[in-house]
């Protein structure tokens, strides 16, 4: 029976990465492509095997060293209590933070993203949200911009 989960998707992505990189070696000179091919072919085989074991749990149980979510021989199943599921707002916030740095620069990006995180994601008080955001941004400014002379903390598009 086919089993599609986040784990299956992740092992598929590793396979896809190996396949794309191997495909790219076709455009390279043979000596420049040699070592990447030597590494890429076993990666594609092993990652493909892992993918099929994840996709077909019966296969994963048969070859338990590759691992299934049930675990098996020499197979720690990873941290099952930990994961993206249910924590997408935090991931979205990190993406927003990176975008804020792009459009407003590092210091303003910290103030904006910290405030949004504290006030709306973790529902802190106004006082804590404002003070924490400003104090953190001020510390970064003093250490990096004033202390170390980093001049490029402005927005790349600003």
């Amino acid at each position: 029976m086919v089993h599609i989960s986040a784990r299956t998707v992740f092992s598929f992505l590793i396979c896809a990465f190996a396949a794309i990189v191997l495909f790219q070696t076709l455009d390279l000179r043979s000596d420049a492509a040699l070592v990447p091919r030597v590494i890429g072919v076993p990666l594609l085989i092993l990652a493909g095997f892992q993918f099929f074991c994840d996709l077909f749990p019966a296969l994963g149980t048969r070859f338990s060293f590759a691992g299934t979510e049930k675990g098996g021989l020499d197979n720690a199943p990873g941290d099952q209590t930990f994961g993206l599921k249910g924590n997408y707002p935090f991931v979205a916030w990190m993406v927003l933070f990176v975008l804020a740095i792009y459009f407003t620069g590092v210091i303003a990006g910290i103030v904006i993203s910290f405030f949004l995180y504290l006030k709306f994601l973790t529902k802190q008080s106004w006082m804590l949200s404002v003070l924490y955001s400003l104090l953190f941004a001020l510390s970064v400014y003093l250490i990096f911009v004033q202390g170390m002379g980093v001049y490029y903390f402005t927005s790349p598009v600003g």
Partner: protein
Amino acid sequence: MELLNEFVTLLSQPYLMLLMLGAVVLGLLIGILPGLGGSVALALLIPLTFSLGPDAAIVLLISAYGTVTYGGAITSILLNTPGEATAAATTFDGYPLAKQGKAGRAITVAVLASAIGGIFGFLVLYFMLPLARSLVLAFTYPDFFMLAIFGLTVIAVVTQGSAFRGIVSALVGFMLAFIGTDPLMGSSRFTFGSYHLWDGLGLVPVIIGLFAITEAFQLYFQKSSIAGEYDHEIKTDFLEGVKDFIHHRWLFVRSSLIGIFLGMIPGVGGAVASFMAYGSAVQTSKTPECFGKGAIEGVLAPEAANDAKEGGAMLPTLAFGIPGSAAMAVLIGGLIMHGLTPGPEMLTTNISMTYFLIAVAIVSKVIALPVSLLIGPRMAIVTKIPGTLMAPGIVAISFVGAYAVEGSYWDVVIALLFGLIGILMKQFGYSRIALIIALVLGGLVEASYHQTIAAFGWEAFFNRPISLTLLGLTVLSLIWPWLRTSETVKRVLGGGHGSH
């Protein structure tokens, strides 16, 4: 003599000593914060070194890295919460001692064992350097190739989690290392048309993503603070701690030697060293029944091993450029940023820098001792801060650090991307350590492969004794996870029925 000169150089520069003091406090704080270990400490501090000279950068990185373990020991004893896996064994007896009102004594012994164990480890490293130098000069291209492959195989196989996925992680790390320009003609390779990738993936943003952002996510994930209630007014009794230490001096020496030896083996790391030292302390004790209930030996042994292993781990890192752990991979990144390439040069042309590094490590251990005893227990209060408040701070420092290294916004994106990859790797049991070490070693592997073919031909991999030995060890370490579960091997090793 050379080491003495470096001590004098270091101690005569107040600026470096002040920097060391600050780094020690930072290292202690990072060690106390849950989940943030030596590798994260180094990854977050590297951006702070870019405006410093190589000597000041070494002072900042080595001093902070060396003090992280002290912080982990303090939270293990006071809160039953190790900052990272390397301090886990200290909780077994440290926390029971704290519950008996002997937290001060336990912390004193832990910090003393860490400090003197660390110094012992670096002194052993110093005395082993001449031997390492002879060894490294006997190595040539095929040997370096095989050594890198062997080191990585061991890391992939023994690292926590599935050996199979450890190997997959290492291969992914290699492929990532090939992004950029090829070493033969300098033409672009796997850049997908992006000029940002011409120089390859920056080591620091990748490390920050895989380790710091993943740990920040973990803090957010657990939401609450880790700290329960504990006595904030801990009185550390230095004299009593010294008395305990002297009483168990042979246990200290044995544990330190275990740490140094295991530190030299790639991938084994501090967690294994401290657990093995703890196990050895139980086995050789006249009162093994006291362990787990508050035996001071149960604090001394893992802490001595955990810090002594640093000296051992530096040997393959400095002599061969082969990092044995994530922290050593990060350190290599930091040293390269300052024009110091770990490998044979660190034992020949840059030998004075190697001695300076050892001097810094030893002096910082001495400075960290009173600092940890005086302010360490009070700093444990930071564990009261909820994870949801610490997480954005760590993410912000990560992004700022990634940006500051080269002033490239692209590095912030890389840090975020690898942060997400790190979260998924952790969730599904892939090895982040194997990936990062392969990323560091990829260039060496490819360059030494081409150099071998050009200079000696492919047969050099199989007709040189060093290469051949390393190849044999690589094959053995690859098949070991499956061998050790084989009934036949179990019978041979166990000498009996061997099913358990």
